[in-house]
C-alpha cells in the first residue's frame, strides 16, 4: 500500500469512527452495563477495527460496516465476560438512561414502566438482549442485525419477535 492509499484508508476510517462512535458506545453501554467498561470496550473496538479495516472494506462490497463494528464489540464483550467469568459488574445505570428522557408529564408517568422494562431486559438471555439493543438503541434493521450476529434474516426476525414477546411477558408480570 502506498502513502496515497494509506491516506484514503485513514480518511475512510475517520468517517466510520465519526458516524458510528455513538452506536458502538450505546451498544457497549447496554451490553456491559456501566460507563467505565463501555468506554474501554468502545476504544478496543475501534482499535481492532482499525487493524482490520482495509480487509473489511475490501470484503464489504459497498455494504455498511456498522454490523462489522458491532460484531467486533460483541466479540470483545464476550471475551470480557469470559475473562471475568461473570455477568456485568454493575447493573445498567438506570438513572443515566432515564435522565436522558424528556421531562414532559407523559414521560414522567411512564418512568415506572421504563424502569421495569430496563430491569426485565437485564434478565433476558444474552442473544435476545443483544438483538433488542441493536434494534431499539441503534435502530438497526433485520438485515444489519443478522450480519452482526452471524444469522440469517429469517432467524433474526424470529429472534427479535421472541425477544419482544418474552420481554413483554416479563414486564407484565411485574
Amino acid at each position, binding site marked *: 500500500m502506498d*502513502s496515497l492509499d*494509506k491516506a484514503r484508508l485513514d480518511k475512510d476510517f475517520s468517517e466510520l469512527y465519526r458516524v458510528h*462512535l455513538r452506536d458502538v458506545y450505546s451498544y457497549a453501554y447496554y451490553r456491559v452495563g456501566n460507563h467505565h467498561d463501555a468506554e474501554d470496550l468502545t476504544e478496543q473496538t475501534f482499535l481492532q477495527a482499525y487493524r482490520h479495516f482495509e480487509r473489511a472494506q475490501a470484503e464489504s462490497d459497498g455494504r455498511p460496516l456498522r454490523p462489522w463494528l458491532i460484531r467486533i464489540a460483541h466479540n470483545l464483550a464476550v471475551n470480557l465476560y469470559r475473562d471475568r467469568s461473570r455477568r456485568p459488574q454493575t447493573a445498567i445505570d438506570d438513572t443515566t438512561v432515564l435522565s436522558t428522557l424528556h421531562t414532559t408529564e407523559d414521560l414522567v408517568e*411512564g418512568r415506572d414502566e*421504563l424502569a421495569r422494562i430496563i430491569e426485565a431486559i437485564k434478565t433476558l438471555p444474552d442473544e435476545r438482549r443483544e438483538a433488542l439493543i441493536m434494534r431499539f438503541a441503534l435502530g438497526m434493521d433485520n438485515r444489519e442485525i443478522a450480519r452482526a450476529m452471524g444469522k440469517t434474516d429469517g432467524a433474526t426476525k424470529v429472534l427479535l419477535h421472541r425477544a*419482544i414477546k418474552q420481554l413483554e411477558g416479563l414486564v407484565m408480570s411485574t
Partner: protein
Amino acid sequence: MSQPAHADFESMLRLALQPVDPPEKLKARVESTLQELTDAAVDELESWEIGAMRDPRNWVRPVVASAVGVSAGTALVVLRVRQERKKRAAASSDPLDLLRRTMRAAAGEARKLARRD
C-alpha cells in the same frame, strides 16, 4: 399494569433503550490513540520504503527495467544502421571505409536516441 399494545410496547422499548452519547473524554482518548497508530503506521511505511531501497534484493526491478531500456535502444540503433547499409556500401571505397562509415552511422543514431531520451 395494563397490558400494553404491541406497538406501544415497542415505543416504550425505544424510549428505554435510547442511544447513549459517549463522554467527551472518550472521544479525545480514542482519537489520540488512533492518531498515534496512524503516525506509527506512516513511519513504518516510510522506513520500509527507505529500507527497501537499501536492500540490494530490491534493486533487481530497477536494474531489469534499465536493462530492458538499454537493450531496446541498442536494437533500434542496429536496425536504423542496417537500413542505411546499402547506401553506405555504394558510397564507400573499400571495406575499411565501409566499417568506418558504419561506425559513424551507429554513433550518430545512438546520439540521436540519447538526445530524444
